[in-house]
């Protein structure tokens, strides 16, 4: 079995006439936390959707566990997805089902386990994210952080080989953020799986990542361990990792000179 779980080669992808990926290639190992980072709008979430087969590449290939995702039939793709978990930015909980039923949903859909067994499994998954006591609540009664933890319990319901996290820390208070950071790390270690975290939250993401890929303008800018990126000589990487306001990514959006815009030039 290869140590590489996700292999992306020469990936090109455009949407609405805008080039999002311009020939990127990267490998994601079978175990450990891999972070995909970059400024907003660089296509990090799009990359997760390409890995999950929700979007199709214009050119290039995306292989997951040796299978080319975009050449699979719908039934084979659905079989592959049963071994993938995904945590959406919004949680994506089914709003007409309780917390318990949300976590039970993939188990009921894909197994023939009896209700007693499903109950045990669901309570164990909810216990892992600290929300066993919230099993009977509805999604509308949960905070943002709790919703994501329930979604995480649902993502691990079928014991997947990989979990993709789409901006898991966005909009979280410090306590929820701390819980999510430690949960991602602990679950990854306990289940010994591949975790792909898409985020632009630098300190927290770097603290739990084994490998980081920085993406910008459709290209991979730099890859390496968190330590390598923190000490990078690249100006762009330095600006992103340290959050500098100005640098290779300018503060101002490209525009005409200010005086020209204010009709003051020459006056």
């Amino acid at each position: 079995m290869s140590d590489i779980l996700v292999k992306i080669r020469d990936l090109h992808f455009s949407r609405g006439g805008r080039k999002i990926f311009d020939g990127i290639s990267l490998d994601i190992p079978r175990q450990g936390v891999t972070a995909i980072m970059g400024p907003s709008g660089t296509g990090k979430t799009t990359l997760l959707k390409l890995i999950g087969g929700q979007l199709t590449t214009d050119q290039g290939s995306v292989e997951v566990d040796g299978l080319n995702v975009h050449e699979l039939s719908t039934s084979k793709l659905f079989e592959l997805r049963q071994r993938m978990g995904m945590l959406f930015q919004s949680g994506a909980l089914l709003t007409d089902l309780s917390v318990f039923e949300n976590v039970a949903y993939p188990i009921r859909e894909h197994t023939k386990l009896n209700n007693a067994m499903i109950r045990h499994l669901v309570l164990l998954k909810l216990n892992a994210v600290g929300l066993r006591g919230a099993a009977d609540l509805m999604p509308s009664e949960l905070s943002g952080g709790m919703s994501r933890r329930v979604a995480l319990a649902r993502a691990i319901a079928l014991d997947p080989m990989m979990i993709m996290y789409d901006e898991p820390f966005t909009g979280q208070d410090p306590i929820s953020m701390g819980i999510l950071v430690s949960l991602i790390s602990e679950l990854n270690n306990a289940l010994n799986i591949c975790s792909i975290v898409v985020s632009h939250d630098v300190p927290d993401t770097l603290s739990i990542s084994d490998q980081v890929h920085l993406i910008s303008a459709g290209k991979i800018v730099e890859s390496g361990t968190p330590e390598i990126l923190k000490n990078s000589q690249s100006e762009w990487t330095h600006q992103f990792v340290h959050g500098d306001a100005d640098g290779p990514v300018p503060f101002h959006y490209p525009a005409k000179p200010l005086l020209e815009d204010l009709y003051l030039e020459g006056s």
Partner: protein
Amino acid sequence: MLNGLIDRIQHLGAITMGSFQRLGHAGIFLLQVIVSCAAMLVRPRLLIKQLYSVGVQTLIIIIVAGVFVGMVMSLQSYYALVDFGAEDSVGVMVALSLLRELGPVVTALLFAGRAGSALTAEIGLMKATEQLSGMEMMAVNPMQRVIAPRFLAGVISMPLLATIFSAVGILGGYVVAVHMLGLDSGAFWSQSQAKVDLYTDVYNGIIKSVVFGVVASWIAVFEGYDCVPTSEGLGQATTRTVVQSSLAILFLDFILTALMFSK
């Protein structure tokens, strides 16, 4: 000036092409939904839940509207027929109007406004909150679990609702004709029985309501599934559902009436 004209023609062409592209997209979507309806055989509970939501919860507005439409029809028919001494035909007039036209058409319009818009909003919101994407990533086909039950529930509910509309409308008409206007109860029912034909009037009305049910449900689920997942996109999709369904129902009613009742 020539450039401006060419620009306008290009713009018109782009709009026309876009409309046909969307129609083709909607057609493929309908085929996928129909194929996905087979999943209801395995999971009938999904359909039953939607029948309650789409059908039963629309019942009140259908009954209230049906009663009033029947009562108004009765009054108007009486005022028109009494001058010719033909007021005993009020029952026939009410029954034929409701069974052939008003039952299917008004029910479909109310259905589009109440259930159709709710379907679009619900599916659109599920899309906006990534619930549909979440299902796909859980290896669950949203077409089978979300779209098909709602579409099928709409198709099944419409003829039932239209039949109930016509039935309560005739009862409303009876109350006005017999208890308000003092017409003979026997004449009301016997004339209706003699002039209303099961095949020409009742069955054709049911066929109309099935067609309207397919069209209104198709538009509602397609608009929800295809909407731009923003609050503005969702609002526009809901509006489109009501407008397009209403126009489609009225247009199809003309076509079906011409085909069914031509002599």
